[in-house]
């Protein structure tokens, strides 16, 4: 609980020099594992989520490979169910939810505030270990037979199946607490630790995004936690709350589940949007048009996200009136999303655009997220959803949002802050090749799924009719291109670590605060606590020295 974290020992035994860069200030593996420095914790998260992405990606490729041809290709139906479930669970709970907030956010947020650390450094470290602990449960479930329920764990199937549901659900439950504690930490940090002059209206939009995300993390995740706990108890004791045979209601599970999981979509996407703001401002050298609108639209998304969960249950037997209300509310979400997209486009207009790799990902984000968002409107329409529900159209829609949106935002942010984190530059040519493969591969994979979904191909099916073969083949080939893109990117980053040129303080010429401190940042983030006198995007107020590469 919070009380545990109010005091932090000020001096570590060997007094590292706070002016030394954070990578060098202390040495040895232990100095990483017990660090209280938000930058190092961010890096540890980063490594963990990238590992998770690799595992999830492996299962994605396996699932796609199985579907390359009809009938048995590399696994049987039962293994197939487990493979797509593992893919979904790993991607959602181990990768995408912690990716931007816990990994990039941990590193960047305090620096952008001009703070020395997050409000509760020990809680921060604890969140990380809770995440690892939860991940171990998920791993344990994988080796004891895995789960075949799909990542949604819908009852009553999840109560009947003999697969290893309990450890997996407990894993998700535990990781939820990691997410909650990170949210609490960020909320307090933003409120209480802003540097002198860092007013709410001068906050970088990345922070507004993470702030909104934290609200969702704190308010939605506990509902998932109690739901998963009840599911475990239902399996142990047969509570009768979700089990229709005992008088319970399986649809209640769906309501509970989506009351978390729809807002969770915004835990995934709002940080991605937030990254895009930073990249666009830097690579157009302009202030984001309509700063306040963009900031408030993050909050609006966070709050509206709590009202629309019912759109996942249109065909689960709600009353007609309820479906109408949920459908209407769903459309409202388009407004803040549209505000963001239009403001980005307005910023790009007349900006001096530089197409370096982070910017390529930011532009991909806008393009792909727009497709993901617009197809979401199709699904929000009652009559159309009845046709499209649980088809590949849905699969393509949420991959356009989650991969086309969040993953692009994450990867773009990783490229953008990589020099700051590591002090190294990467090979821009190779980065562009990787981007090209990812962008093409992604679209090939999922456009094919839009088409077959709209023609009635159901999701989660092990086999399919001959007329869908061409789409499945195309989609699988796309997944190989996509996989090759991510592998190229990985190789590029490893080469950069090994032999990349040394980065200057501000390689992109950005006006934002995190680029004004040395690269890599010192242990205390700034050599002298900054007083903020202008906004992060006030290029017209920034001096040559601030924007220059050195």
């Amino acid at each position, binding site marked *: 609980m919070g009380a545990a974290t109010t005091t932090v020992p000020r001096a570590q035994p060997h007094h590292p020099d706070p002016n030394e860069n954070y990578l060098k200030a202390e040495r040895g593996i232990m100095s990483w594992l017990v660090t209280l420095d938000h930058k190092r914790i961010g890096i540890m998260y980063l490594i963990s989520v990238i590992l998770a992405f690799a595992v999830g990606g492996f299962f994605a490729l396996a699932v796609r490979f199985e579907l390359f041809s009809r009938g048995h290709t590399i696994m049987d139906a039962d293994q197939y169910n487990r493979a797509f479930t593992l893919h979904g669970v790993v991607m959602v709970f181990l990768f995408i939810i912690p990716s931007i907030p816990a990994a990039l956010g941990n590193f960047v947020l305090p620096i952008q505030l001009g703070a*020395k650390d997050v409000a509760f450094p020990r*809680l921060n470290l604890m969140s990380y270990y809770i995440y690892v602990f939860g991940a171990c449960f998920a791993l344990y479930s994988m080796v004891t037979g895995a789960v075949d329920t799909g990542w949604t764990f819908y009852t009553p199937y999840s109560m009947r199946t003999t697969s290893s549901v309990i450890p997996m659900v407990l894993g998700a439950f535990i990781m939820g607490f990691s997410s909650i504690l990170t949210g609490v930490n960020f909320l307090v940090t933003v409120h209480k630790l802003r540097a002198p002059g860092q007013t709410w209206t001068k906050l970088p939009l990345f922070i507004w995004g993470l702030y909104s995300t934290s609200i969702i993390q704190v308010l939605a995740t506990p509902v998932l936690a109690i739901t998963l706990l*009840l599911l475990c108890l239902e399996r142990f004791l047969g509570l009768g709350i979700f089990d229709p045979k005992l008088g319970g209601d399986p649809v209640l599970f769906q309501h509970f589940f989506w009351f978390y999981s729809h807002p969770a979509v915004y835990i995934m996407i709002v940080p991605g949007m937030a990254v895009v703001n930073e990249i666009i401002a830097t690579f157009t050298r302009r202030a984001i048009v309509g700063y306040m609108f963009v900031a408030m639209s993050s909050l609006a998304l966070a709050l509206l996200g709590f009202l629309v969960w019912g759109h996942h249950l249109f065909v689960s037997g709600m009353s007609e009136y309820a479906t109408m209300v949920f459908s209407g509310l769903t459309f409202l979400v388009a407004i803040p999303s549209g505000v963001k997209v239009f403001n980005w486009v307005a910023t790009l207009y007349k900006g001096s655009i530089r197409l370096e790799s982070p910017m390529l990902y930011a532009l991909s984000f806008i393009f792909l997220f727009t497709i993901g968002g617009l197809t979401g409107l199709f699904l929000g329409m009652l009559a159309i959803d009845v046709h499209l529900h649980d088809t590949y159209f849905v699969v393509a829609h949420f991959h356009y949002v989650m991969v086309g949106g969040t993953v692009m935002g994450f990867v773009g942010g990783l490229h953008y802050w990589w020099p700051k984190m590591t002090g190294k530059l990467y090979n821009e040519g190779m980065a562009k090749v990787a981007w090209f493969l990812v962008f093409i591969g992604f679209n090939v994979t999922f456009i094919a799924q839009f088409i077959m979904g709209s023609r009635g191909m159901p999701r989660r099916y092990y086999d399919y009719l001959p007329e869908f073969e061409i789409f499945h083949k195309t989609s699988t080939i796309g997944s190989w291109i996509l996989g090759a893109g991510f592998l190229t990117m990985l190789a590029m980053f490893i080469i950069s670590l090994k032999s990349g040129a040394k980065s200057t303080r501000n390689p992109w010429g950005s006006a934002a605060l995190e680029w*004004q401190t040395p690269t890599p940042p010192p242990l205390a983030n700034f050599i*002298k606590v*900054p*007083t903020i006198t202008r906004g992060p995007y006030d290029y017209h107020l920034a001096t040559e*020295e601030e924007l220059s590469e050195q």
Partner: protein
Amino acid sequence: MSQAASHAESAPASHDESHEAGHDEHHGPAWLAHHFDTPAQQFDAAKLGMWAFLAQELLFFSGVFVAYGIFRSWYPEAFSSASHQLDRVMGAANTIVLLFSSWTAAMAVRSSQLGKKQQTTTLLLITIACAFIFLIVKYFEYQHKFHAGLLPGKYFGHPVDGGLFGAIPAGHGHTPHLAPKAHIFFSLYFVMTGIHALHVIVGIGVLFWIVKRNAAGEFSKEFFTPVDLVALYWHLVDLIWIYLFPLLYLID
């Protein structure tokens, strides 16, 4: 260093040398963490963090409250007949015990603010004692339910629904007549009071830890945040019980 300072201009007087992270020369008291400027800032941060945490706790419980609301509206007879099986006297006693302990927790904060160390310890120990009393009463309640076969879900020892549960010995024959679906009431009863009891147990642990720190002289008029926070937590535990008691014990 000029790089960092350029964006940042040189700091005004209030933010002077003490902020030279350089040697982390820290003029504040020992309990002031290095990344806070002032005790007030640290206190506010801790308090806000605790409130956010408590909001989270409330939403955690909201799930079972919603489930309760739904099943009660579906199976009103079952809920009312099953509710009569609970011991209102014990429930009421526990309510009073918890209310009293909340008061002593609040008084502990007060005495800590005044720097009365010994009194704080005493008040916190009373709070802990109440928590134990609560658990003991709870133990007897649970034990009684176990004997009567009033167990959650599929272990419920009463042959309802045409003998769906008939395979389980019907609570040594003592089980009173209950409307069908009463097992759901007991599921919710055990889940809600169980999670609440878990919070009481965690509270006892944390309270002991605070007593220890208080005895070690860590707190003073200037620094009493942990006492304040643990009391807040304890008020929440109390508050949730205040909802559970009427919902589970007093409905008709």
